[in-house]
């Protein structure tokens, strides 16, 4: 939970201009908010989030800066007053031509504002009241202020406030905020123009959630860990962050919960001291043993994210905002153990990877003890890295993942081809694309007509193999014609969500006049299933039989299953 601003944490500042600024809050430093002011970081550390502050200072004096909390009543003052007026009589507020101001006589140029730029600048320098005085002066010296309608006056004031108020709101940096920040304040293309609504859908259709407390029923959990997710993420780590948030492993202070629960069942590093020798993954040898929960990197069994990446190193730069530096991850961060990375090459051809393939020669302990400490730790590091890569890659190749979430620049069908077989039965698949075309192509690859053709072709090939001695490689023959096995995915669906923002003010509610265009964002989802290899007819209304076969796709169940059940029951 984000209960207060922690030292050395990234937080977001909402500025009067509606811009968002992200900064790390380091104790005993200044925080710069551009023209909106400067203040010491210590004045917000330890304070709760979502508070709005005014920056006050006396010009010329040092250490005079202080922050004043702006109360909610003050923030809402205008609306509350407007509403209060309206409450008086519920009927139309006395429509008198004399008092009803219109914009008939307004002058559409700048001559109405009598303050000159120089005067405003001078005011800014003298001003102490967080910009309020300037705005008051501006309103005073506006020659046509009395001709403005209430609405246009409010708008005028708001515009000036945005420009001159020294005010900001402190907001916790979470995935939703980062998503909007990247979309609106930064380069949207870096995150594939991902929106909140698309992330929400991805997480839900991917069924991404915490894998469960493992203190319960240790045996089954160990043999079949829950909550292992496979992710392909080309949004710089945003999707990984969103998944991690849903799984409770994103925030450094989430770790308190997580470590505990991992320790409970997963007694892998029973003795912290010995563990360093065993796994040799300790980047630093000193102080490590004292830490109770020291576990090797990427070692968690359940509630994990495995990221597949196209290049040698994954691009997960956005995770730094959550305290996870890709280059030098903190050992106490929950992602340290629960986030694993595997490149596509390691997945498809692990032996081509030099780290995986070349085991560093093992050195006996006696010899090792003669080494210099730097050399020894280098040995441990190399050895540990090899073991880690081995373990993580083998684990990924073994499959059995509980869900697949994809947001990639690559052709989604090529990704699906290699990832769907790694899923456990009934595991959901969710793919995001900023554009629809890559996903319509995927939909087409899973079309009913194609599925039917696939099944018929497979049967043909099987029969061919059975009758002739000529070995027919059913799989490769099928792959030639069908890039994806269409029978592995149930209920392929394509959808899109878009949120429309409204302004709700007394008597003035309407959708926002403009919003960001660009990519709408589309989600493809389905469920991995295990088709039986036998042929089976679809049942249904005989008159529509032909169609039904085509649509509801046939794949068969084994007849032997019934017997199995009896045995176990």
């Amino acid at each position, binding site marked *: *939970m*984000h209960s207060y601003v922690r030292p050395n944490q990234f937080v977001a500042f909402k500025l009067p201009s509606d811009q968002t600024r992200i900064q790390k809050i*380091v104790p005993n430093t200044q925080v710069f908010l551009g023209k909106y002011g400067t203040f*010491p970081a*210590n004045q917000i550390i*330890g*304070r709760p989030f*979502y508070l709005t502050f005014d920056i006050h200072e006396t010009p010329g004096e040092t250490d005079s800066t202080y922050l004043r909390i702006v109360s*909610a009543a003050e923030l*809402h003052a205008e*609306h*509350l007053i407007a509403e209060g007026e309206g409450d008086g009589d519920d009927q139309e507020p006395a429509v008198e031509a004399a008092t009803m101001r219109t914009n008939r006589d307004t002058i559409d140029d700048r001559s109405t504002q009598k303050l000159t730029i120089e005067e405003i600048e001078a005011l800014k320098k003298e001003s102490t009241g967080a910009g309020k005085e300037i705005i008051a002066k501006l309103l005073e010296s506006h020659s046509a202020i009395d001709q403005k309608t209430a609405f246009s006056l409010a708008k005028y004031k708001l515009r000036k406030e945005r420009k001159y108020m020294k005010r900001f709101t402190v907001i916790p940096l979470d995935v939703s905020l980062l998503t909007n920040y990247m979309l609106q304040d930064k380069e949207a293309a870096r995150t594939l123009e991902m929106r*909140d609504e698309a992330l929400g*859908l991805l997480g*839900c*259709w991917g*069924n991404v*959630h*915490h894998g*469960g*407390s*493992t203190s*319960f029923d240790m045996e089954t959990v160990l043999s*079949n860990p829950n909550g292992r997710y496979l992710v392909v993420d080309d949004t710089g780590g945003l999707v990984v962050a969103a998944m991690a948030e*849903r799984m*409770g492993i994103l925030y450094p202070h*989430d770790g308190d*919960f997580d470590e*505990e*629960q991992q320790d409970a069942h997963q007694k892998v590093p029973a003795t912290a001291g010995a563990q360093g020798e065993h796994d040799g993954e300790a980047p630093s040898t000193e102080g490590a043993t004292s830490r109770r929960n020291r576990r090797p990197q990427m070692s968690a069994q359940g509630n994990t994210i495995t990221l597949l990446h196209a290049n040698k190193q994954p691009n997960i730069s956005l995770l730094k905002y959550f305290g996870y530096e890709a280059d030098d991850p903190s050992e106490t961060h929950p992602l340290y153990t629960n986030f694993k990375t595997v490149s596509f090459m390691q997945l498809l051809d692990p032996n081509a990877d030099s780290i995986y393939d070349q085991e560093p020669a093992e050195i006996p302990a006696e010899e090792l003890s003669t080494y210099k400490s730097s050399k020894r730790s280098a040995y441990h590091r190399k050895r540990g890295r090899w073991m880690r890569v081995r373990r993580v890659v083998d684990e990924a190749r073994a499959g059995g993942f509980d869900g697949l979430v994809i947001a990639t620049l690559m052709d989604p069908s090529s990704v699906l081809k290699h990832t769907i077989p790694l899923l*456990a*039965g*009934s595991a959901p698949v969710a793919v995001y694309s900023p554009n629809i075309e890559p996903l*319509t192509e995927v*939909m*087409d690859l899973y*079309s009913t*007509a194609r599925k*039917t053709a696939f099944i018929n072709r497979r049967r043909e090939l099987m029969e061919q193999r059975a009758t002739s001695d000529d070995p027919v490689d059913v799989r490769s023959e099928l792959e030639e*014609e069908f890039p994806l096995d269409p029978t592995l995915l*149930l209920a392929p669906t*394509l*959808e*899109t969500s878009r*949120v*429309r*923002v*409204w302004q*709700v003010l007394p008597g003035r509610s309407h959708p926002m006049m403009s919003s960001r265009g660009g990519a709408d964002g589309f989600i493809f989802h389905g*469920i991995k299933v295990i088709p039986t290899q036998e042929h*089976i*007819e*679809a*049942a249904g209304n005989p008159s529509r039989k032909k169609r039904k076969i085509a649509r509801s796709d046939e*794949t*068969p*169940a084994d007849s032997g299953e*019934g017997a199995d*059940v009896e045995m176990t*029951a």
Partner: protein
Amino acid sequence: MSSPFLTPGSHSQLDQLALLHLRRDQAIPTVLQLQDEDNAGYKEGKVTTTRFGSFPHTTLTGQPWGSQIIASKVDTGSRRGRGPQKKNRQLKRKADDLDSATTTPAEGENQSSPQAAVAASSGFLHLVYPTPELWTMSLPHRTQVVYTPDYSYILHRLRARPGSSIIEAGAGSGSFTHAAVRAVFNGYPTTTTTTTGEREGVDAGPSPKNRRLGQVSSFEFHEQRVGKVRQELREHGLEGLVHVTHRDVYQDGFLVGDSKTGTSPKANAVFLDLPAPWLALRHLVRHPPSGAESPLDPTSPVYLCTFSPCLEQVQRTVSVLRQLSWLDISMVEVNNHRIDVKREKVGLEFEKVRGAVVFPKSVEEAVSKMRHVEEHSRKYRELQQQQEEEDGTPLPASGDKQGKEEKAPAQAKAVPESETPVAVSDLTQTSSVPLYQQGRLVHRTEDNLKTHTSYLVFAVLPRDWTEEDEQKCREKWPPHQVDQPMQTEKPKGRKQLKREQLQKEEAEEKQQQQQQQQQQ
């Protein structure tokens, strides 16, 4: 206790909910059991009958999730208790029960071990574990359902995360409840009876810390719905994670247990699916005027969402939110639509293809077809002319007409066969492309469009912050202590460092060169 929604395991298990997936928007939820509670009288024990065949639960239990299951031959005709007879039977049985005081098995010898099922020749379905999405699709409707596009966005905005405590008012059909449980789940409670947010993880680890388990506190004022929701949650293994309270929250607020002295759910997030959310808001404050405990978590900001179909409701809600000092108030609606993808087949070659439009696909095709028709009629006219010439003088209509009619069609038929190489070759060409690849790939919004579900109002209530707290904070973090001047504080980017390094090297090189030159 484990829930197939959260930790389904790898195989279906007895007495757990499973979904029988028939088609995209149709799945039948069923609790797997060997014996039928209703004693429908199947020899195979409990059987679920679908439009794609009958499925004895013996064939569904212990299967890997996601398996395709073949329908079984089930004798539905000769079993006991069908149609009107069934009612009599049940009545009789009830009477019997009273006598024997034990449940009488329908088929004595089958009670312990149902007969093995025999695979049917056709019909199948997929056995999948339940997820909130699939459940939302297949749940029995009691009220308006909050669908996936809405709840996915709401939970994301509400910051419902593992370990959160969430209040839901208006449990309704339970779709949001299931999604919310999944969002906040981070472990099953070790003791199922506790209702507070804070629990001690007694068996959680070697060093038990206070560890907060995610929970949902659900309120519903409709008694029958409360019963249904409770039963569902029990069947779904979610009992310990959701606390359903029968309560009119407008009046009695959100404390779990007794409305005045009950325990606070210490909520981090609130979802109100009520007709008049503004009436419930007065209970969602930091310090209730009644002096009762606040239902909100005192240590975190509280996120709120209300779900109202009408704009008038929204306006009243927002107005009250402002009065109660909620911040960051915003209202949105979610527009979601599904997209159909298909192959649109337009062209003259698609004769006899289902769903295709036989129409020229291009100007070229149209022209070539017209040419062909023209050619055909020209031939026909020539033929006619020829005939006339052959016959010499045109004969009186009656005698000649017959002969002409006989001859001309015969000729005309012959012409297209020999003279339509274009069309024929087209046909052969396209047939080499498999059917599933013919036509143009198109997409469009699905036929049934939900254009409005509800307006979503979001707001945040920050933590309480008193002068005292502020004072403490000031002592801990001296407000004017600034160690270094900002300029050096600003971290240099890696690129910048590199650049500087390069510049330095260049400068050194230059210096060296200069030195060398000087030396020379």
